[in-house]
């Protein structure tokens, strides 16, 4: 076929000077700038675009916009492959590669087309009623088969090379839709001085308008108006917020440098005008899915905008006025319009006269009963319709044609208006669902989407064309999901009669087009079958997105490393230079270990922790939550939030504190120091810094407003370094602060402020490792320098930097609880901290901690564990039992033993689990912390750590959780 044989010599809004080459199914084609893939292929005479979902029937183009149900193609290749894109929405560019889908080996010979012959079993709901027997066949066999047959295109299998971003818009008026109505509304608002944002999904403004519109230019000259094309409003959310996606670079081979592929906008509008138009509906007759059958408005758009003749010889079929204009425009571009079939007995006089003038024969009171042809349309059968519209009357005429342009009436695009849960209102004159009272006080609808059109002669209600006697064959409602009139009948017969059941049983409207052209027809047919009127049946729910939207666009670049912010300490650069392996802790990136020549994590942390026990190590503790607590009532406040006593804490001293939730469970712990009379410096765990701060703010603002206390997060103000190990004091001595760090000057739990070469420092003599240790803080600007100085001062002592892994090893040896033990389920008593809890005061959680279950003796409690065979590893997450667990004890999937299993789970003998393990640098073997029923009473006994999944049991000895220096001598020396 000669290229462009279906393109008129002139006309259209295409740029004939710019010829664009692209391929479809491997064949080269040419089009013009301004073409869509659909228009360019139509111009080249291509009629077949894909195979349908269930029956693999050949399919052509139906529409000219996003409502296209049929012509879904895959565009681009490799990492940029995109399946299931309507050809009507693809702008061609040089080198575009497009392919048809759901066919094998090729579009015209498709072996799955056999489904078409097997059609009777693929009818609605067939899965549910078949394949259960024999039971053993379902999964390995039937289900696999079904899954193989599923799906349309092939998804990309590589990371997306393109970028996406987010943007925010604010406006007085958001106008959605750049057709005649939208342009006009925008102009009016613009002239009134309002800030206007107009969005249009297509690349052009004016929608189907044939003549250039003066409003377009007027808008371009207004500073207060922004017009965005290629931008779809895909969802309405609360607060008059609309989600938009701007296709910045989809019409280009690749995005220009610095530009995203798509931009995800949120527009927050004081007022919104919906001007989104209406979708034309197909008519439902036998084989109405043949390539060559399309919507009249689409045929018209191809003719007017693209100067394309969508066929050589056309029949027009309508139940309303609008197709007359299409017929005339088709004639104008050189299509031979053989006949205009109008279902109405009375035809619109003015339009009919014009049509006849153009040489078009009008068959009034008639319908197309069947489309004929194999892979494309060759002819249609036309017959008169009985007055009651129940049957066609003989004789039938066969009219040869390769284009049938149909109009079954119009459906206002109410989708976006309904996203907040409203339902549209049915207008039985217009045969359409209209916005009705859907709209909020700050919303309005204009033009087609408001049902703002008048026909000379009322449309004739015609949801399906009755079949002539003996006629057979499918009449499609939902092209994309292959739903036919028979499916609706079946659903009705089986009792799936609510529209929602109809939808789910037949899959009507559940494809990517969401039934834009189909839903109303389906529910009208159900109404008819039930003998109800359409409003009584109602619509299904309209949900976002209005058109399918790339996940990437909505994620807007917050993927991979950017998924969440990363927080860094001021010392980060040093860690990076030293090759630290980082780990995330509550958004913070912290050094996990600093590998030395090929060390793995185990070797590294054992070495690091070992040095701390014998010499001195330093660790960056900046990420600990730090909260400045100030005010005349600060002491009273701390007394209330901590379970242990704070009233007696002296200035210059620090104390370990435990905080509970209202329900009596441990919330967080940390050290709080008294800087001056009314001034405290609180620390929290890294992970809980935010929640603790928020909770305390709530207490002050909401519950105890009488307390004069201010809280300020100073986590980012201070950089912190823990210096730990027997040589830590010597190291600090070499640092040159003006602080007395002798044991007397700065005893255990002492706090001192001073300076270091002019920089402010605070030194806390506290220890997480169990060794003589200090935490030294300076303001963040000097954090890096302080670290370097500490590092220098530590050189004579062979100081090492250590990471979170060694930190964990040290705290486990010391029996300090942390995240794995503070798991939101444990009480102070469970953690061995019961004696700390004040008995004299009231504090957060002090009432509900006395609920019976929280006081029971057989709760799990903290203990230490060591493997009896010291050479064995322990693993956290292992269960603790008195007996080993053998897989045969509880065979999987043994129905016979199920009744027995319905006893309490304690019957499985589970007495607890290991929370934390480490290789002990001090003891030279594995140790663990565990929560064990009645644990402390079991000290000295032997139990089993069971890795039931692996069938592994390790005999362990229950010991005190304090593996090193239980009396805390090292801390105080």
């Amino acid at each position, binding site marked *: 076929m000669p290229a462009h044989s279906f393109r008129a010599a002139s006309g259209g809004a295409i740029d004939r000077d710019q010829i664009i080459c692209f391929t479809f199914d491997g064949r080269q084609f040419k089009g013009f700038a301004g073409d869509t893939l659909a228009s360019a292929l139509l111009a080249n005479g291509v009629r077949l675009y894909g195979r349908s979902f269930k029956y693999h029937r050949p399919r052509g183009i139906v529409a000219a916009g996003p409502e296209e149900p049929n012509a879904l193609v895959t565009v681009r290749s490799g990492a940029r492959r995109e399946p299931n894109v309507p050809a009507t929405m693809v702008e061609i560019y040089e080198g575009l590669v497009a392919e048809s889908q759901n066919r094998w080996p090729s579009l015209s010979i498709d072996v799955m087309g056999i489904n078409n012959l097997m059609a009777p079993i693929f009818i609605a709901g067939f899965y549910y009623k078949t394949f259960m027997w024999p039971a053993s066949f379902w999964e390995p066999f039937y289900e696999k088969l079904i899954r193989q047959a599923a799906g349309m295109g092939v998804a990309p299998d590589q990371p997306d090379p393109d970028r996406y971003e987010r943007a925010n818009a604010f406006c007085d008026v958001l106008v959605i839709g750049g057709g005649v109505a939208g342009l006009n509304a925008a102009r009016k608002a613009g002239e009134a001085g309002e800030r206007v944002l107009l969005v249009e999904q297509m690349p052009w403004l004016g929608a189907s308008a044939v003549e250039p519109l003066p409003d377009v230019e007027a808008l371009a000259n207004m500073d207060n108006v922004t017009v965005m094309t290629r931008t779809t409003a895909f969802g309405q959310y609360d607060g008059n917020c609309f989600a938009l996606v701007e296709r910045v670079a989809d019409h280009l081979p690749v995005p220009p440098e610095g530009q995203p592929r798509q931009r995800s906008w949120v527009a927050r509008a004081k007022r919104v005008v919906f001007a989104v138009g209406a979708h034309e509906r197909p008519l439902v007759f036998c084989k109405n899915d043949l390539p060559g059958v399309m919507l009249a408005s689409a045929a018209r758009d191809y003719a007017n905008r693209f100067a394309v003749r969508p066929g050589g010889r056309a029949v027009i079929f309508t139940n309303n006025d609008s197709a007359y204009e299409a017929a005339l425009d088709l004639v104008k571009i050189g299509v031979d319009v053989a006949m205009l079939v109008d279902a109405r007995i009375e035809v619109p006089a003015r339009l009919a006269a014009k049509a006849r003038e153009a040489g078009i024969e009008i068959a009034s009171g008639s319908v197309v009963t069947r489309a004929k042809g194999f892979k494309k349309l060759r002819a249609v059968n036309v017959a008169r319709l009985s007055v009651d519209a129940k049957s066609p009357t003989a004789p039938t005429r066969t009219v040869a044609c390769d284009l049938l342009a149909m109009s079954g009436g119009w459906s206002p695009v109410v989708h976006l208006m309904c996203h907040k849960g409203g339902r549209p209102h049915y207008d039985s004159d217009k045969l359409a669902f209209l916005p009705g009272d859907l709209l909020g006080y700050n919303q309005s609808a204009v033009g087609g989407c408001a049902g703002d059109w008048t026909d000379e002669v009322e449309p004739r209600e015609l949801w399906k064309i009755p079949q002539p006697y003996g006629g057979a064959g499918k009449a499609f409602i939902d092209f994309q999901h292959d739903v036919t009139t028979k499916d609706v009948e079946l659903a009705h017969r089986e009792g799936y009669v609510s529209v929602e059941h109809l939808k789910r049983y037949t899959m009507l409207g559940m494809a990517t087009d969401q039934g834009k052209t189909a839903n109303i027809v389906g529910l009208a047919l159900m109404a008819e079958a039930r003998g109800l009127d359409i409003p009584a049946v109602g619509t299904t729910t309209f949900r976002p997105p209005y058109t399918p939207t790339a996940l990437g666009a909505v994620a807007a670049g917050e993927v991979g490393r950017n998924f969440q912010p990363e927080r860094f300490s001021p010392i980060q650069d040093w860690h990076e230079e030293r090759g630290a392996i980082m780990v995330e802790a509550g958004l913070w990136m912290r050094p996990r270990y600093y590998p030395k020549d090929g060390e793995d994590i185990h070797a590294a942390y054992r070495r690091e922790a070992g040095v701390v026990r014998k010499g001195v190590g330093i660790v960056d503790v900046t990420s600990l939550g730090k909260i400045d607590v100030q005010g005349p009532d600060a002491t009273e406040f701390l007394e209330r939030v901590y379970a242990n006593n704070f009233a007696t804490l002296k200035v210059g001293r620090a104390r370990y504190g435990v905080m509970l939730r209202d329900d009596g469970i441990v919330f967080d712990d940390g050290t709080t120091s008294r800087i001056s009379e009314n001034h405290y410096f609180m620390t929290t765990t890294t992970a809980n810094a935010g929640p603790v701060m928020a909770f305390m703010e709530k207490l002050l*603002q909401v519950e105890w407003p009488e307390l004069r206390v201010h809280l300020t997060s100073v986590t980012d103000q201070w950089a912190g370094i823990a210096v730990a190990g027997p040589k830590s004091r010597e190291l600090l001595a070499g640092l040159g602060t003006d602080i007395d760090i002798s044991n007397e000057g700065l005893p255990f739990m002492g706090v001192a402020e001073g300076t270091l070469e002019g920089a402010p420092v605070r030194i806390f003599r506290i220890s997480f490792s169990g060794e003589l240790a200090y935490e030294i803080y300076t303001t963040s600007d000097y954090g890096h320098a302080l670290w370097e100085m500490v590092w220098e001062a530590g050189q004579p002592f062979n100081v090492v930097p250590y990471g979170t892994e060694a930190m964990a090893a040290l705290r486990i040896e010391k029996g300090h609880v942390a995240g794995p033990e503070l798991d939101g389920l444990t009480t102070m008593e469970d953690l061995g901290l019961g004696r700390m809890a004040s008995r004299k005061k009231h504090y957060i959680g002090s*009432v509900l901690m006395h609920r019976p279950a929280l006081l029971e003796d057989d709760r799990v409690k903290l203990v230490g564990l060591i493997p009896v065979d010291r050479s064995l590893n322990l693993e956290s997450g292992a269960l603790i039992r008195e007996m080993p667990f053998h897989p045969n004890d509880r065979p999987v999937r043994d129905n016979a033993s199920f009744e027995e299993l319905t006893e309490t789970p304690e019957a499985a003998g589970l007495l607890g689990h290991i929370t934390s393990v480490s290789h002990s640098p001090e003891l030279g073997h594995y140790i663990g912390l565990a929560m064990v029923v009645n644990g402390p009473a079991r000290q000295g006994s032997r139990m089993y750590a069971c890795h039931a999944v692996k069938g592994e049991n390790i005999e362990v000895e229950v010991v005190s959780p304090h593996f090193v220096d239980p009396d805390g001598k090292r801390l105080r020396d």
Partner: protein
Amino acid sequence: MIRINCPFCGERDHSEFTYSGDATKVRPAHGSTDMEAWLDYVYLRANPKGSHTEFWHHVHGCRQWLVVERDTTTHEVLNVAFAKPLKSGGN
């Protein structure tokens, strides 16, 4: 996007705030040892369909705790106020 009109900051997306549930629950006085009262405060919720008075914390803004009245069937915000009555601090 629920838009919450913070009395300090103006109208903002709800993602700047954290939600903290029913604001009509009365916390027992500090020092109260009435177990039933605490259980009620911590656990029981009227969970109304319709107007709901609830806490939002403007955690990424001014860090004030707000009491917001919002319809749980439409998400419409009916009223916003500071949780703590203010005497100063801006307008």
